[in-house]
């Protein structure tokens, strides 16, 4: 871990934290967003911490489990971190589906927050 670039370390810790919260207590995800954060969830836009948490909390399943297949992180020229996650998820007893998620992380007063978040299921022959 020590010899990994810092953005890799921050990005992967964020990813681990995010999905752990999502799978166990997704109503607490508000802690990682700020009032100017944007979420695009399956093409639908949400702006601000409150709207984002409401959307995620209201998703109609009881249990969800994410499994990360791969994650990539990059430093941006303005000091942020861009992360892309590819994985699979299982909601309640439904079949397993693939998904992609992209995060932009920004350091604001010594804390990393998520300013941008985009989520898509990886389904191809469905509308």
């Amino acid at each position, binding site marked *: 871990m020590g010899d990994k670039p810092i953005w890799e370390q921050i990005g992967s810790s964020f990813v681990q934290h995010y999905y752990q919260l999502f799978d166990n207590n997704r109503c607490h995800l508000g802690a990682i967003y700020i009032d100017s954060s944007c979420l695009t*969830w*399956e*093409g*639908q836009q949400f702006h601000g911490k409150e709207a984002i948490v409401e959307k995620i909390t209201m*998703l*109609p*399943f009881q249990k969800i489990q994410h499994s990360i297949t791969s994650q990539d992180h990059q430093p941006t020229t303005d000091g942020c971190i861009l992360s892309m996650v590819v994985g699979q998820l299982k*909601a*309640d*007893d*439904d*079949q*397993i*589906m*693939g998904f992609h998620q992209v995060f932009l992380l920004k350091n604001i007063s010594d804390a990393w927050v998520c300013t941008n978040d985009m989520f898509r*299921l*990886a*389904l*191809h*022959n*469905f*509308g």
Partner: protein
Amino acid sequence: MFDGDYDYLIKFLALGDSGVGKTSYLYQYTDGKFNSKFITTVGIDFREKRVVYRSNGPDGATGRGQRIHLQLWDTAGQERFRSLTTAFFRDAMGFLLLFDLTNEQSFLNVRNWISQLQIHAYCENPDIVLCGNKSDLEDQRVVKEEEAKQLAEKYGIAYYETSAVDGTNVSKAVETLLDLIMKRMERPFASADQNATGTSRRSVTQGRSGGPRPLGRRRVKS
């Protein structure tokens, strides 16, 4: 998998709440088996079957058989993440609407599924067959046959009690739906055409823009 020789390609969608047995139902229909641990291949979630359709003319004579390539589509559960949109219903010509006879809520949600269909399908009165699934679990049944029949009657659709486990009525329901679709396609002039309840039915080709064209490619002329 199949050669390209068929008269019509017909796409059906299986709808209904999560857990009512849509995947097992389709598996039973296409493969004649019940598989409680159906493993899906993400991205190609439909099953296919070839059938021959013979229409019964008014004189009772059967016409030449039409070779039908049936595609049966299932949802992958994406309705939990987003609402199903017009794109999902695109090109579907008939709908198998399933509920679970042992789950009251799945029966109550049939009304919501029908409203969704009325909004998103190719026309306001698409062809639907209602299936009360899991009829093999008679001791756990909570939805009475009479209640389900009344609901189906209210919407003017056919109702079957089915079992993906033992196969009861599984083919029967699909055949009924196919029959409705083929009859709809045989009616080219919607405006002059009235169904039994007096509502005008749009023909397949005159549905809303982008509505199902019979995906038939008459590759082989007879």
